[in-house]
């Protein structure tokens, strides 16, 4: 009887121990494959992972809170016609500001770095690359043609967005993006397509320099919301007397 008891306890302990061991090994595999190649320093890697984890957690809680807020809002405006009108207005404003996911017909522009061994690249290798000002010009042309929502590689362009050159990468909304660039725009398909592909347009220009380009009309494009936060500290409305 006593021997049986000992055997069972030892078995259970080994069971717990091996579970913990497997989890630990898996965790370490995951961690080392994710970041150890480029960051040799252990402390730095630890810190990066920790911060990433923190960021992910906070982003998740933010998402949850936003969902809750939405629920509370709909609940509060269910029985009130005045409030529901306000709610409609709020939704409309959020769509304009880029704070909601939207969908609609539009065009997709794909721009990518050209072949570095082509003839055009031998003259000047910089010509076949996509630069930040190319993206800026394309966004300007799209806005000019009446695009209602624009997104570059998952980064929504809102009124505080910036497109900057950071050495070898381009940053949109402070997030690094790289070639190939996929620019989605929602708006009048004919107008957008026509103005982007017209003779002498910017895209024709960079195409001649050796950049790979592709413009297609697409129905029902899905554009994600702006992931950052719009903060206004110094703005105050003027009340008319």
């Amino acid at each position, binding site marked *: 009887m006593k021997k049986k008891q000992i*055997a069972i306890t030892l078995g259970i302990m080994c069971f717990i121990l091996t*579970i913990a061991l497997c*989890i*630990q090994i898996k965790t370490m595999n995951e961690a080392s494959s994710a970041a150890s190649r480029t960051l040799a320093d252990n402390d730095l890697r630890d810190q990066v992972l920790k911060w990433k984890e923190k960021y992910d957690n906070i982003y998740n809680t933010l998402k949850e809170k936003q969902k809750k807020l939405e629920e509370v809002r709909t609940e509060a405006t269910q029985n009130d016609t005045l409030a529901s009108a306000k709610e409609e207005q709020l939704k409309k404003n959020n769509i304009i500001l880029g704070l909601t996911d939207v969908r609609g017909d539009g065009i997709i522009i794909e721009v990518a770095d050209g072949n570095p061994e082509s003839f055009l690249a031998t003259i000047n290798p910089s010509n076949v690359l996509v630069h930040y000002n190319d993206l800026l010009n394309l966004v300007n042309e799209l806005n000019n043609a009446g695009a209602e929502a624009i997104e570059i590689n998952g980064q929504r362009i809102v009124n505080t967005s910036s497109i900057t050159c950071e050495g070898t990468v381009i940053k949109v909304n402070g997030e690094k993006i790289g070639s190939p660039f996929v620019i989605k725009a929602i708006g009048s398909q004919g107008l957008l397509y026509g103005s982007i592909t017209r003779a002498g347009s910017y895209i024709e220009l960079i195409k001649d320099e050796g950049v790979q380009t592709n413009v297609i009309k697409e129905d029902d494009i899905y554009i994600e919301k702006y992931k950052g936060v719009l903060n206004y500290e110094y703005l105050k409305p003027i009340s008319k007397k």
Partner: protein
Amino acid sequence: MIFIAIVLGCIIGALIGINAPIIPYTYSGYLAIAIIAALDSVFGGIASTLKKNFDLKIFVSGFFGNAILSILLTYLGQRLNVDIYLAAIVVFVGRMFNNLAIIRRYYLEKFVKYRKIQKEKIVEYEGKNQSENAQKKEIKK
């Protein structure tokens, strides 16, 4: 019996562990030190079973107590910026080697005894044969 239970526990644990979700990287350091403590307890348990002074209460409390205590110490060390977990590892691994030595000696002695008995048996058998042969020779004469 005990050996079978340990192997069975390890196999089932590995099967579940492979499918278990990974834990956040921040806590993996604590889990590692807890694993070392638990490993020490298991080896201690096996050694005490062989010495026949196994106590269930001491074993179970040691298993969980050591793991939790070492996690707390590691946490304290991180707060104070002292690597206390190194001390815990030294103690646990040192004890682990002690227990392994006890286990090794037990089985080595058993093996040596077994060989001795076998040798004696062979000697006995040969002795019998010799005496029988001698008897046969005498009869022939």
